[in-house]
Structure formats: structure tokens, C-alpha cells
């Protein structure tokens, strides 16, 4: 008891070992369900596969060169790009508008906040079914309205010109809830004193919005833009229920394309190559996001 020797390597590495132990569940799960499959996906993308997803023939970059010349895939990429363009900016501006309204201190504001955030509680499947009905050519609400005001009816989901826009509209609606919640949280984190001092200086509402609210909100905006972008690239459920990629491939977004290639056509090699492309796109988008925006983002 009285003599305590200096601790050896074993004791000095106690923190390392214990820390590792606490991280172990995460590390195992990430390895099995994220790192391994990511590497496996990259590996498979260089092969033709059998029905069970085993690598059969090494084809080098052929899967990629096939994809990059395939009109179907290029079409899918174009549709995905357009879809991102339609949904992300409008979705965020709308959510920001709602959040600004809901950030006013008024009676009953809690009720409105709940309304705005409600779509977060509605699953993609449920939302898609509701919108399927709204878009219905004959009984759907939209065409009834068009009919009522004597405008030509639109084949929302069946017309290749309109299908992607329709999906985009429904997607914007589905995502406002989450974006709204995050942005409202960001707005409420802004120090009241900033507004008080600007009011003393006599600044108007839009001046305050431009000079205080938006700059102070920029970390939150940055976060929600990144998340929205990633989410848009990952769109699947609404496609599967509303259009199944059609009409004439106009809504065949990349994840749906991967799904079809893999689990309907059993072409795991080309599906993997598409998955790798998706991964690269998201990687580039996030890195660009950080590079472009991080400088402009105002952290406290």
C-alpha cells in the first residue's frame, strides 16, 4: 500500500483503452454498415456481377464509360440536377419566410409553429399518397381548381414536361417542416439585444433583416442548405410512389435509378458505379459548400 510505483505503459494508456471501449459500438457498426459497404460498392463498380451480387468479370472502368455515354443515365443526371435546382432554393426561402413569420412574438404563435412544422411528422410515403390524390387527373384538387377557373387541365404526373415539377412541388412541401424547425431554432438563438440596439438606432425591418438577422443566421442557413442539398440528391420515396421514374424517364432520379438497376435489373456492377458517382457528387457538393460558404458564414 505504502509504495506506489510509477505507472507503466499499461496504466498510462488507460484513457486510450477506455475511450476505445466507449467508441467500440459505433466503430463496429460504422465498419460493418458504412465503411465496408462503401469500399465494396467501389470494388463492385469495376465488375460485372452475378445474381447474388458477387463480382464475376473485372471490366475496369467499363461500367463508368458505359454510364457516361448512356443517354438513360445522362438523362437521369440531368433530371437530378434540375430537381435539386427546383427544390433547394425555393424550399429554403419558403422555410425562411415561415420561420421569420413564426418568430414574431404574438398570441397563439405556438399554434402556427406547429402547423408549419407539421410536415416533418408526415412520412414520405404518406405525403406521396396525399399528393398522388391532389395530382389526380380527374378527381385531384389541382385539376378541379383549373377547371373551375377555366384553364386547361394538366396531366401533372403523366406529362413528361410536368412530372418533375410536380414531384418538386410535393418535395418542397415535405421538406419545409424540417427546414422551418431548424431555421426557427436559429432565429431564436439570436441575441435580443442586437435588435434592441438597432431599434435605438432607428433601423427598419428590412434593414434589420439584411444586416442582423441574415448574417447572424448564416451558420444555421449554411447547415440547412447543406442538408437540403444532400437530401435532394437522395430523393427516392416520392418517385417510387408517384411516378416510378416515368413518364419516359423524366423523373428517374439517381437513387431511383440505382435502385432499379440493382434490385429490378440485377445489374449490381453498373448500379454500384452509379452509387459511386452519387457519393462523389455529394462529396464535391459538401466540400464546395464548405469552401465557398465557410468564409462568408458569420460565427459568433
Amino acid at each position: 500500500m505504502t509504495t506506489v510505483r510509477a505507472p507503466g505503459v499499461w496504466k498510462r494508456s488507460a484513457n486510450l483503452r477506455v475511450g476505445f471501449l466507449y467508441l467500440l459500438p459505433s466503430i463496429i457498426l460504422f465498419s460493418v454498415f458504412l465503411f465496408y459497404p462503401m469500399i465494396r460498392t467501389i470494388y463492385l463498380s469495376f465488375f460485372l456481377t452475378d445474381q447474388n451480387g458477387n463480382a464475376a468479370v473485372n471490366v475496369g472502368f467499363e461500367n463508368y464509360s458505359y454510364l457516361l455515354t448512356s443517354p438513360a443515365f445522362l438523362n437521369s443526371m440531368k433530371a437530378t440536377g434540375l430537381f435539386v435546382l427546383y427544390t433547394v432554393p425555393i424550399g429554403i426561402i419558403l422555410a425562411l419566410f415561415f420561420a421569420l413569420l413564426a418568430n414574431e412574438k404574438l398570441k397563439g404563435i405556438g399554434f402556427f409553429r406547429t402547423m408549419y412544422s407539421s410536415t416533418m411528422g408526415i412520412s414520405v410515403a404518406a405525403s406521396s399518397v396525399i399528393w398522388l390524390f391532389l395530382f389526380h387527373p380527374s378527381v385531384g384538387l389541382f385539376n378541379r381548381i383549373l377547371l373551375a377557373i377555366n384553364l386547361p387541365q394538366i396531366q401533372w404526373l403523366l406529362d413528361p414536361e410536368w412530372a418533375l415539377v410536380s414531384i418538386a412541388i410535393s418535395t418542397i412541401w415535405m421538406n419545409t417542416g424540417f427546414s422551418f424547425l431548424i431555421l426557427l431554432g436559429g432565429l431564436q438563438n439570436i441575441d435580443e439585444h442586437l435588435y434592441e440596439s438597432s431599434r435605438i438606432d432607428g433601423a427598419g425591418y428590412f434593414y434589420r433583416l439584411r444586416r442582423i438577422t441574415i448574417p447572424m443566421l448564416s451558420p444555421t442557413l449554411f447547415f440547412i442548405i447543406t442538408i437540403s442539398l444532400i437530401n435532394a440528391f437522395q430523393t427516392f420515396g416520392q418517385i417510387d410512389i408517384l411516378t416510378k421514374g416515368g413518364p419516359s424517364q423524366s423523373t428517374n432520379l439517381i437513387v431511383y435509378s440505382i435502385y432499379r438497376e440493382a434490385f429490378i435489373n440485377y445489374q449490381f456492377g453498373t448500379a454500384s458505379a452509379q452509387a459511386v458517382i452519387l457519393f462523389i457528387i455529394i462529396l464535391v457538393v459538401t466540400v464546395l459548400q464548405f469552401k465557398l460558404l465557410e468564409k462568408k458564414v458569420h460565427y459568433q
Partner: protein
Amino acid sequence: MKRVELIDVSKSYDKQVDVISNIDVTIEPGEFFVLVGPSGCGKSTMLRMIAGLEEITGGVLEIGGKRANHLSPDKRDLSMVFQNYALYPHLTVGQNITFGLDVKKVKKTVQMERAKEVAEMLGLTDYLKRKPRELSGGQRQRVALARAIVSEAPICLMDEPLSNLDAKLRAHMRTEIRRIQRKLGITMIYVTHDQVEAMTMGDRIMILHDGKIQQVGKPIDIYNYPANPFVASFIGAPPMNISPARMEPSKSGIFIEDTIHVSMNEAQSIASSARSLLAGIRPEHIKPVITGAEEGNKIQVDVTNVEILGNETVFSFQVGQREWMAKWSGQWDMAIGDKVPILLGSEYFCVFDEETGELIRKPEGLEHLSIAKEVSI
């Protein structure tokens, strides 16, 4: 009650330069020992090494005569009060107080009994059911104290426990902590940056600067005979006036800032050569020249600033490159720009060696007043 002994203790991070070095000190059982120094001097690190929260990289720590370098904190038989109190926010005051006892598997009935007793001592009885966030700063501080006391550990460590309180409450808690420590007879190691706390609370104080001991001793000895210029200017408010000085060629006195001459009888003995010196005098030792006073070191100064504090008057004046301050009791009618005659009694001067910082001449004739001699009833 246990003794705490530090033998040549040092601390370094990543085998780099020592942040604390050569600490040799023995804290006696039942002593109230204060570690004081400016922020970043290593006082908290030292306390945390005693607590076992930081590794000791050199030297030996003994607690109660046993080597404790590698003992885990809970085996050291001590309690600790933190600056931010470290109360568990999810537990009630009562649960906070008994937390340590519960960990040590003390019987519930005993826990209750001891908590009740301590709560009474600190006036917390009415708050036992509340959560920490419902308490004021002062009450939280008491809970932190209660938690330390209830453990009945023979050693208590406190890390700036009063610095989050307002001035009035702080003064009150100073006496209260001191009272409790005396009553329980525990060994107290108390860290503060506030020299007033150090002076008023400590049996002995240790002044740390840049990780090195500057001086250890009774507060009044440190005040009167500071070991070096750092201690001299750190302890006391306003601080001691210190200026460079040199030996007069005739060796009958010193020249301060090349402007003031102070004659010193024993100047011969201090100065074996004309090395560079520092001379210091406390503001209250600069006296007004009253009619009939002997000539001595009387000079005229221009007042550059005045603060009248009701019971005393503090004013500054320029001495060469430096601004000095003087403190006179009572209210003095003076204004900036006035010429004031002052008396620099040579006996009050401390003289330091500028290079080594060593005190080479102690002040003399400091008035130790004692009731029996000075007051007749």
C-alpha cells in the same frame, strides 16, 4: 487531520518546460494555507495535483505521511470546492450534499443525519428539496461548502471559491469559511488570486509566480518583509512604491531614480559595491511633514492625482520615471498640481538587489501596536 507535504514537486506538459517547479512546502495539520498569485501562476495546477486531478511529473507528494503521487483522487481523503461550485444540476440540494456519501455506500440514515447537521450549520435547511438552479449564487456556494464538509475528509481544497460572489457576500463568506475551518480543525488549502483573501484568511500564505515559490510565511511577515519586489508589489493595496536606486558614492545613503536622496545609517553594510538596487516604500509609510518634525528626508512633490476615500486620502506624485502613491489617514484637502511636502523615513525602506531580487535591507521601526501597551482603560 493530516499533513500535506510537497517535496521538490514539478509539473510539465508533454515533457516540455516546467509550468511548476521546485515546490517544497509542508502544510501542517489543521492549518489554513493559502496559495496566492496572479492568474496563470500555476496555483490551480498545484491544487489539482494535490487533489489528484493532474498528474505530478516530478517530485513527491505525501499526504498524512504516505506517498500519494499515483493515488486516485477518491483515495486521498480530501474534499474539494470548485470555483463554479460543480453542483449536480439534476439533483436536489440534499442529494448534492449526500452524493459523495452515497457513492461510498454510507447508510441512508447516517447520510440523512449528517446532511441535516451540515445544512443547519450553513443555514441550508429550508432549501434541501430545491434544485441548484433555484438558488442564488451565495446559496449555491454554501451547498458546495456543505458537500465538502459532510464528507468529513481531513483535508479540504478550495479553488477560488468566492470569486463568483459579489463583494459584500465575499467578505461575509471569508469569515464564515474561516470559522468553519477552525471549528472542524480541518487542513485547508485555499487558492485565490485575491491578496485580501490571502491576508485575512491564511494562517500562512504562499505566493506563487511563474510556477515558482516566491515566499511562504505568515501574512503579516510577508507584508512587512517581502522577499522580493514581486511579492512587495503583489501584496498590499495600493502596492509598494518601487524604483531603481543606486548607492551614493559617499555610502551614506541611496539615490532613488537619481532624484531623491535617502540617507541610511547602515548603507555601508548593504552595499559592498555600487551594484544596482531597487528601493521600495509602502504608501502608508510616506508621512505628511508636520510642524516640528525633524528634517530628515523631507521633499516637495507635485500631486498628480488624488482620491479621497472618506477615512483616508491616497494621492500620487511623480518620482523620476515612476508614479508613486502615498496613503494618509483622514481627509486631506489637496488638489492636482498642489505642492505637498512629504517625509520619506529612511527606516521604512526595503532595498532589493535588482539582479537577484533578494531583499538586502529589511525595513525597521514598523509599528506593532499592542493593546496592553497603547491603550489605558
